[in-house]
């Protein structure tokens, strides 16, 4: 999921790739990582979208598809849920701030992605 986050990953395919049923895969994943595969993937995609908004001139629509969202509506809604602002608002605000230092990509992707608990519908941080 980390590597293929921008692909159209569906849950059946993910479960099949590790030879588990859909329900068992979701349960095992949540027990191990404290959140559902869907939530994990969304956080990965939002983090990459944040990076592209900061570091590139690509349009919000292009970035939405770059990181694997199928609709601009879902992308914008999810982004706002997590960060409390729209993708273009985020870009505008970050463009005014201090320039960002060089951060190795793996660190950025692992440590600087939205925490699980930032999603509006789940304030427990996952493994409650």
């Amino acid at each position: 999921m980390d590597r293929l986050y921008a692909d159209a990953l569906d849950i059946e395919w993910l479960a099949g790739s590790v030879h588990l049923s859909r329900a068992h895969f979701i349960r095992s994943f949540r027990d191990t990582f404290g959140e559902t595969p869907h939530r994990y993937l969304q956080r990965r995609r939002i983090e990459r979208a944040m990076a592209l908004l900061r570091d590139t001139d690509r349009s919000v629509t292009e970035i939405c598809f770059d990181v694997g969202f199928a609709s601009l509506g879902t992308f914008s809604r999810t982004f706002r849920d997590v960060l409390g602002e729209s993708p273009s608002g985020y870009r505008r605000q970050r463009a005014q701030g201090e320039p960002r230092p060089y951060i190795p990509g793996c660190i950025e992707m692992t440590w600087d992605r939205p925490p699980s608990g930032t999603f509006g519908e789940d304030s427990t941080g996952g493994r409650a």
Partner: protein
Amino acid sequence: MINAISHSLLWVFDQDEALDFYVGKLGFDIHTDAQLEHMRFLTVNAPGQPDREVMLMLPKPPAVDESNAEAVRDIVAKGNGGGGLIVTTDDCRADYERLVAKGVEFTEEPTERFYGIDCAMRDPFGNPVRMTQPAADPSPPA
């Protein structure tokens, strides 16, 4: 081809305390100290070696979930964290005295070895740091 190690990682439990130790006591330089969206990215380097950064990272979500963070703190505190540094000095005994006076906890006093003189300390979190004054002409025992 691969030609250098540029970054390595140490687990710390408090980044200000880590700075106090690595910068305030050992004399490292701050390389990068930046508040990002969800983390403070903090790296230090030995004086004069800015191309070799040590990242002082907190084991915490979202990178490390709470139960694993607790496990990391536990093994690091016991000295089994797997991280650590070996640094060189031009005067092991003098640096040892200086650091003892600053309250650094040593696990080994300066000792003569075939490769030089060295001693060992712990950082405030349990990571081992070894300080070696290399011998001018090291000759391994036959």
